[in-house]
């Protein structure tokens, strides 16, 4: 269920790397934990981020969570569709519910993230 072609952060973001462009969103596990997503706050295109920086925030009806950027780079695109349809994060987190695209400055940071298998193991321990 967790896509094999992406890498995962402990804070539940995924990065899907296509050449030097990383597409970032939150995982299926994270969207389930959050419940109905009602608002996603994203950075402006052009923002420079370091791995671990706050990327934005995601809100459900009664909770707000910070999003962290798992890799360093420049924001080159944000998912404008989420402004009107934040529920895409719930319905299709790995597809239409993506959040930002980043021009990754150091691809080795991606390698340091978890694989799909490692992430699934991680979520199983976390939910206990």
């Amino acid at each position, binding site marked *: 269920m967790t896509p094999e072609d992406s890498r995962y952060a402990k804070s539940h973001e995924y990065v899907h790397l296509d050449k030097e462009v990383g597409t970032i969103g939150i995982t299926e596990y994270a969207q389930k934990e959050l419940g*109905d997503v009602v*608002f996603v706050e994203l950075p402006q295109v052009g923002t420079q981020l370091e791995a671990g920086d706050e990327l934005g925030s995601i809100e459900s*009806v009664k909770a707000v969570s910070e999003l962290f950027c798992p890799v360093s780079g420049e924001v080159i695109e944000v998912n404008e569709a989420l402004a009107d349809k*934040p529920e895409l994060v719930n319905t299709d987190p790995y597809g239409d519910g993506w959040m930002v695209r980043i021009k990754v400055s150091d691809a080795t940071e991606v390698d340091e993230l978890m694989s799909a298998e490692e992430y699934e193991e991680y979520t199983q321990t976390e939910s206990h």
Partner: protein
Amino acid sequence: MSTILETEAATAPAAATAHREGVLFEHSRKGRRGYQLPPLDVPEKNVLPASLLRVEIADELEVSEVGVIRHFTRLSKLNLSIDAGMYPLGSCSMKHNPRLNEEIARTPGFALSHPLQPDHQVQGNLELLWNLEQALKEIMGLPRVTLQPVAGAHGELTGILMIHKALAKSGNARKYILIPDSAHGTNPASAAFAGYEIKELKSNSRGMVDADTLAAAVTEDVAALMITVPNTLGVFESEIQKFAAILHAKGAYLYCDGANLNSFVGIARPGDMGIDVIHSNLHKTFSTPHGGGGPGAGPVGVSESLIPYLPPPTVERREDGTFYLDDQHPDSIGRVRAFNGNFGVMVRALTYIRSMGPQGLRRIAQLAVLNANYIRARLKGAYHLPYDAATLHEVVFSDKIQTAKDVHTLDIAKRLMDYGFHPPTIYFPLIVSGALMIEPTESEPKEELDAFCEAMLAIARECEERPELVRTAPHTTPVRRLDEARAARQPILRWKRP
């Protein structure tokens, strides 16, 4: 007893008789009137330049007095209220609101007085305020009380600003306010707006602050500990004097959130515990009505060293027995609001304090604590008690037993509505997963407490036998569960002509 709700009626769609009242703007009809003014008896002239003149207020209403009275009467019937029954919201002290208070506050000599009248014209108001301060000083065991703040959070901001100013005056305002993880959200928010960073203190296994944990956390950078006494579990921090000593030794202050004063009014006094600052919610302990969210008042009592920083104005008495407003406090934090605080709320509170007298004030705490412990005793076993320390005026259960059947706190709360009760505070304090925080107050007679407990026990049985009934509750309220995600995703925050 509400056993009817275990029958089929409970699964029927919401009561067909519930009146669905449209938004008033939809009742507007051209030419209708809800008011009348006397004829304009001065000549009408062109006074304002055209650039400042408003042509019309588009879409504003045209309705009759009959229409307005029917509308608001019908709306009112969609609310539960303390007048109609127990409203056991934890840490909210939803107690009886005496009607004498309402009558006294409406006395024309009070109600029509103007905030900027000179002192000699408002001696009655000033004497009243002075008496209220004297009463709160005696209740809090502190030497001065400002009556300016108009809500608990406003009092918090006032108190923390005073601490900041006092510390700054002595050379270092410091950086942090310590706040336990069980605290109400206004505490960190107020501290942040007063210019501090927040350091969270973890509660120990009994839900309390540990003196050792505190001692380790109090550095030279800590300005104060903000703590609720008794805490949001209803547990009295029995080491409170030790906390004060730890803080004072490092030059820091002890701030008490007085939201739960109802549990020990007349029994013990914050000042005697070493507390430096406490705000009290007149709309909790002192019976002024919550009015659907306000108004309130949040007077703040302070220890001797903080008196110079009180916000203006204060009420003072001259030797000849006359009173005046004093706004000459050179070291003050400054005004926290225009005019003189929520005077109307203060009239109600003093009326209540006089109605209770010293015996009655003590009896408030005694009966509030008795009522809460009665509920605790009756529901223990049926609901999980996450912390079993002795509690005062409220008791916090969790949904741990019910989650086995996939029924959660929210469901239990909603199901209570079918039994005619407003739910308790839920999912707070945050340190309890699935918290149900019940505060009955002294206003509830035994038969109401019994009815509530029977309802809770019936729901516990339903969770075992018919969990779906609970998960889909409420069934009998004017509306059923709302689509809150829809409200937040595409907010509709005002009526618009279709």
